């Protein structure tokens, strides 16, 4: 089954310790997204890649970075996690004229 896979499902990191979340896809979609979702809030778009073109949202903190080494993989790097960065992080993909396909998310806890 073609899908979007996020690893790990649960991640615990310490305050200020860099952490990387990963996302892979077998759908061969050219667009990949990272959303942050806090409890009972709307998923918030952090950034997306259109092929290799990186598109950062204006209000995404500099603490958040992303890498897309190839079509299949995309990474979210949080350079110095704060307590306020604890959230569910959702990766999604799409291609022209298709709705978003989401992974099951990574729940990040910051201690």
């Amino acid at each position: 089954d073609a899908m979007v896979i996020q690893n790990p499902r649960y991640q615990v990191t310490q305050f200020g310790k860099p952490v990387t979340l990963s996302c892979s896809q077998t759908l061969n979609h050219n667009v990949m997204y990272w959303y942050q979702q806090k409890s009972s809030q709307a998923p918030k778009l952090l950034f997306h890649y259109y092929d290799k073109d990186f598109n950062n949202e204006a209000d995404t903190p500099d603490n958040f970075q992303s890498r897309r080494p190839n079509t299949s993989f995309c990474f979210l790097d949080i350079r110095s996690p704060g307590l306020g960065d604890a959230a569910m992080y959702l990766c999604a993909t799409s291609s022209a004229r298709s709705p978003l396909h989401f992974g099951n998310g990574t729940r990040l806890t910051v201690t």
Partner: protein
Amino acid sequence: DQQVKQNSPSLSVQEGRISILNCDYTNSMFDYFLWYKKYPAEGPTFLISISSIKDKNEDGRFTVFLNKSAKHLSLHIVPSQPGDSAVYFCAASEDTSYDKVIFGPGTSLSVIP
């Protein structure tokens, strides 16, 4: 500034009855609207969409209605089933390139057997 609003955080409906989930938006440039459904511990999955050139789109038990002048859309589920219990997100984008999709905060639907 929330561009997509879902003012009802939760909704309970009896099995077999109609569920109506509402969504309002503020950005008049939005021209494509989607509903996603999310079960606990899973990512959202696409349910149904509508473009701004239509006012209704139907897919089985699910119908989405769009009122552009009121900047309002609604999702109707008829008849509601216990398996429909989930969080429903309304989402919108400015063009059909789908590059930037803005989500509402979701409505948690409980269908009571």
